[in-house]
C-alpha cells in the first residue's frame, strides 16, 4: 500500500432518511468528502444534529450511504466488521457479563479459542488500568470504568480503526481528562487509526492531529485543520498555540451552531 492511499476514504457521501412524511425526506449528510490517514488520530466536531454520528455509523458499516461511497483500505465498506471497533457514548456494555466477559465478546465473535480469549481480555483490561476488576459487572463500575471496559473491548479484537462516538461526553471533567490522556497513550502505543467524534472544542484540539469541522445539517466537511504541537507531553492546554487552535475552531463552529439552532427552531415551531 502506498503512503498516499487513505486508510478511510469518504467520497461524496450522502445519507437521506425516510420520514413518516414521505414528501419530506430527512437529509442528514450531503456530499461528505474526507480522508483519514493510516495511524492518524482525527477528531470530528460539528453542531448538534449535523450528522456526525450518522457518518460514523456509515464508516462502521451499520448503515449504508444513500449516495457516494466509503473505502476502507481501498475496498468499499459493505457492512460491519472486526476491522473496525466502535465505542459508544453510553458504553453499550452487556450488563449480564462481567468486565472480562464483556472484553472477550468481540473475541468470541472472532472465534478465538477460549483460553486465548481470556488471556487477551485480561491483558486489555490491564491496558486500560482495570486489573483486579475482571469479575465486576457493569453496574458495579463507575461511568469512567465502564467506558474503560468498552475501550478495552474494542481494542481486544485488534481492529485497525477505532470509531469513537463522543465516548467521554457523559463523564465528569476529571475522569474525562484522565481518559483522554490514556487514550492518547494507547493510540501512541498501538498505532491505531482513530476517528473521534466530540462536541468539545478543547477535546478536539487536545486529541486530534487533525480536526475536521462539519457544517450544520445537511452535514458536510467545512474544513480540516492540522493541529501541530512540538510535543504532546506536558500540559498541552497551557500552550499558547492550544488557545489559537481553539479560537480558530470556535470561529468556524460559531456560524454553524447558529445555523443549527435556527433549523431546530424552525422544525419545532
Amino acid at each position, binding site marked *: 500500500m502506498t503512503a498516499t492511499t487513505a486508510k478511510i476514504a469518504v467520497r461524496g457521501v450522502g445519507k437521506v432518511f425516510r420520514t413518516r412524511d414521505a414528501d419530506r425526506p430527512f437529509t442528514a449528510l450531503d456530499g461528505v468528502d474526507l480522508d483519514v490517514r493510516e495511524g492518524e488520530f482525527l477528531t470530528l466536531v460539528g453542531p448538534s444534529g449535523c450528522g456526525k454520528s450518522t457518518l460514523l455509523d456509515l464508516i*462502521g*458499516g*451499520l448503515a449504508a450511504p444513500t449516495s457516494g461511497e466509503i473505502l476502507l483500505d481501498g475496498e468499499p465498506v459493505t*457492512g*460491519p*466488521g*472486526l476491522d*473496525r*471497533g*466502535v465505542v*459508544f457514548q*453510553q458504553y*453499550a456494555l*452487556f*450488563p*449480564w*457479563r462481567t468486565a472480562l466477559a464483556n472484553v472477550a*465478546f*468481540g473475541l*468470541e*465473535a472472532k472465534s478465538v479459542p477460549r483460553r486465548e480469549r481470556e488471556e487477551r481480555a485480561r491483558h486489555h483490561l490491564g491496558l*486500560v*488500568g*482495570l*486489573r*483486579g*476488576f475482571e469479575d*465486576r*459487572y*457493569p*453496574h*458495579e*463500575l*463507575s461511568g*469512567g*470504568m465502564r467506558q*474503560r471496559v468498552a475501550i478495552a473491548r474494542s481494542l481486544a*479484537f485488534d481492529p485497525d480503526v477505532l470509531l469513537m462516538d463522543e465516548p467521554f461526553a457523559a463523564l465528569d471533567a476529571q*475522569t474525562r481528562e*484522565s481518559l483522554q*490522556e*490514556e487514550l492518547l*497513550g494507547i493510540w501512541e502505543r498501538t498505532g491505531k487509526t482513530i476517528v473521534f467524534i466530540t462536541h468539545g472544542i478543547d477535546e478536539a484540539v487536545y486529541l486530534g492531529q487533525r480536526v475536521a469541522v462539519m457544517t450544520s445539517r445537511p452535514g458536510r466537511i467545512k474544513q480540516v485543520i492540522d493541529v501541530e504541537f512540538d510535543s504532546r507531553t506536558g500540559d498541552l492546554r497551557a500552550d499558547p498555540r492550544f488557545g489559537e487552535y481553539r479560537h480558530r475552531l470556535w470561529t468556524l463552529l460559531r456560524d454553524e451552531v447558529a445555523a443549527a439552532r435556527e433549523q431546530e427552531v424552525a422544525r419545532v415551531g
Partner: protein
Amino acid sequence: MADTLTSPAAVSAPALERSRGGGIAARLGAFGKRSLAVALLLALWEILPRAGVVDRVFLPPLSEDLAAWADLLRSGELLEHTEASVARSLTGFGLAIVVAIPLGLLIGWYKPVAEFLSPVLELFRNTSAVALLPVFTLILGIGETSKIAFVLYACAWPILLNTISGVKTVDPLLVKSARSMGLPPARLFQKVLLPAAVPAIFTGVRLAGAYSILVLLFAEIVGAKAGLGYLINAAQSSFRIQDMYAGIITISVIGLLFNQLLVHLERRFSTWRTT
C-alpha cells in the same frame, strides 16, 4: 500510568459498598415484621371463634383445623390429594414453559409474526382462563387431559407476554454494539437478545407458577375425583369444615413455597439487573 492504576480503585469503593452491603440486620427486622403479622392473623383465627365473635361452626379455631390436618395426613388422604394436584400443576406449568418461551422468542424477534399475531394475543389475554374452563371440559372431557390443558393455557400467557416484551425491550444500543462487531443474526440472538430477555422471562415464569396452582384449584373444585380442590369442595359439601380448612391451609403453604422457590430462581438469573 500511575494515575491510571489508582483512579479506578478510588472510584470502586463506594460502588462495592452499594452492591454488596445488603444489611443483614435490616433483613432480619423485615422478616420479623412480616412473621409478626402472620402470627397475629393465626392468633385471631384461634381466639375469635373461641370467644364467640365468629361462629365456630363455620370458622373452627386454628388448633382444630390443624388437628384435622394431622388426621388427614396420617390417613394418607392428604398425600393422595396433594400428589394429584401437584402432578397436574407441574405438568401444565412445565408444558407451558416449553411451549411459551420459544413461541415468545419467535414473536418478539420477528416483527411480521408479532404484527400478525398481536390482535389475537390481545383478545385471548383479555379472556379469563376461567371463562374458558367449560370449553376445555367440553372438548377434552373431565379427566386429567382437560385439567392439564387448562393449567397449560393459563400459565402460557404470562410467560408468553413477558418473553415477547423481554425480547422487544432489549436496549437497541446493545444490539447495535454487537452488530458493529459483525455478529450474524443467529449469534446476535443467542448472545444478546436471549440473555437480555432472561429476567423478563423469569418474571413470567414466576407469575405462571402462581397461576398454575390457582387455576388448577378452580378446575378441581368444579369437577374432579381427586386433588386438593376436590378435597376442599367435598369437605365443604359434607360439612367436614375442619377438613376443608386443612385443605385450604395445605394449598396456601404449597403456593407460598412454590412462589418462594421461583422468586429465588428469578433473583439468581437476574443478579445483573440491579440498577
